[in-house]
């Protein structure tokens, strides 16, 4: 579904992604783990088109998209829940969700809205509340819900567990597994490597802008090098 081939990206003159290549097949959860500053967020932003690629190719469903603007990629089915939630603070929960469907504002918006509320009932209770007054966990649910409103084929999730209590982390990750069952492909970026690899079909380890390991989720969990570097054991 998604093939990234030799992708590079830079902030000014400083290159932060060095020829990154990876594949995501339809129906998979692929985890991308790595320490702070490895370039995980930059990679996702480059995939979404909010950070320019300076080289390489991004092929989505057979089409090269690295030159397309961000909104065109949303139309093609790539949607992102960004790092740090980035909800529209002054707007209501429901407005946040409806804006998620900005590029797919058709007759099915209300049924998708209901689906998000079923998935995260707390959002339904607080649908008139300003997003900025939600708790961190609720904002995370809102960010994921907003990304789902675009009816993505590929969902990019950036650090959905960051700053959340362990119980909430489990709830969010369960939701991710649930999305896979519904046929949505997920590329999951996490610093919480053990949690991410545990639910992933396959994983990639990113280190200072390069892919250094790849394999299926369980294998990476067992890999002594990965364990030493990212799992703290």
């Amino acid at each position, binding site marked *: 579904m998604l093939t990234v081939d030799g992708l590079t990206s830079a902030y000014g003159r400083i290159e932060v992604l060095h020829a990154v290549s990876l594949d995501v097949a339809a129906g998979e959860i692929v985890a991308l783990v790595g320490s702070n500053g490895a370039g995980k967020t930059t990679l996702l932003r480059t995939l979404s088109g909010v950070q320019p690629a300076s080289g390489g190719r991004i092929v989505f469903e057979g089409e090269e998209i690295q030159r397309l603007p961000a909104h065109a990629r*949303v*139309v093609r089915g790539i949607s992102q829940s960004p790092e740090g939630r*980035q909800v*529209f*603070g002054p707007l209501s929960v429901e407005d946040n969700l*409806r804006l998620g469907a*900005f590029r797919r504002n058709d007759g099915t918006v209300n049924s998708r809205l209901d689906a998000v509320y079923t998935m995260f009932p707390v959002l339904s209770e607080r649908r008139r509340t300003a997003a900025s007054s939600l708790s*961190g966990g609720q904002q995370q649910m809102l960010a994921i819900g907003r990304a789902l409103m675009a009816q993505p084929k590929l969902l990019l999730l950036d650090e959905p567990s960051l700053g959340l209590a362990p119980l909430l982390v489990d709830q969010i990750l369960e939701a991710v597994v649930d999305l896979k069952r519904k046929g949505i492909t997920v590329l999951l970026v996490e610093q919480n490597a053990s949690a991410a690899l545990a639910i992933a079909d396959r994983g990639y380890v990113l280190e200072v802008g390069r892919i250094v390991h790849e394999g299926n989720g369980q294998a990476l969990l067992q890999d002594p090098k990965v364990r030493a570097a990212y799992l703290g054991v």
Partner: protein
Amino acid sequence: MAEFLQLVFSGLTIGAVYALVALGFTLVYNASDVINFAQGDFVMIGGMGTVFLMAAGLSLPVAAMIAIVAAVLVGLLLHRLAIEPARGASPVSLIMITIGASIFIKGVAQLVFDKQFHSLPAFSGTAPIAIGGATILPQSFWVIGGMFCVVAGLWLFLEKTLIGKAVLATAANRLAARLVGINVTVVLALAFGLSAAIGAVGGILVTPITLTRYDVGTLFALKGFAAAMVGGMGNPIGAVVGGLLIGLMEAFGAGYLSSTYKDAVAFVAILVVLLVMPQGLFGRRAVERV
């Protein structure tokens, strides 16, 4: 008492125009962090455009519509030719660009129009209406009513349409706006176009009372800016309240102190606001739950 009321009427009338200019500042500032000092020139384009189109034989409504469209085009061109190419520049650079654009627009206006003062006929007669010993011109109702119509229309647009919400979303978080597929460039162009239309409406409404000339935009921009600052930059309600306040203060300053210092009132207000409460009356506090 009659004098007081008289000053209130004239203050609210001119304040309504400052409120419209301040709303224009607010729209553009929210969508782009740019303070567009060419905002006052849209007021001039509205007024002067209508004057010259009427002189060419068009009726007032037609001339006014064409003048508004012209102002919108100028606003879109300003965005496309001056703001968009400088995307990513610092706010100070962008402000300087808008000041340059403002000077340019005045220069072109001198050539297209002329350097004389002009007026428009009042929309519905000039017979003053007596209220409580004071009098108010029918045109004042047009100005104040027009302002409220614009505010109501803008509110409906921003709160009730998805495109309007996209403008608010872009103001709230540009990265997230791009991620949900909002074309931020289009939203910015929309903000410039809308603010130009709002300014032009103000200019058309007020010209029968205050006259217009190629360079009236400067004072409107500065006073509208003062109004936006008093109300809290970025807050539409603040812009309206700030505009009416600046208008009232100016009227009282001219009436009770000296009309020589009329124009100074707005600037004293900016200084006081910056010293005492930089966030303005309705400014957002920089606190957010994380």
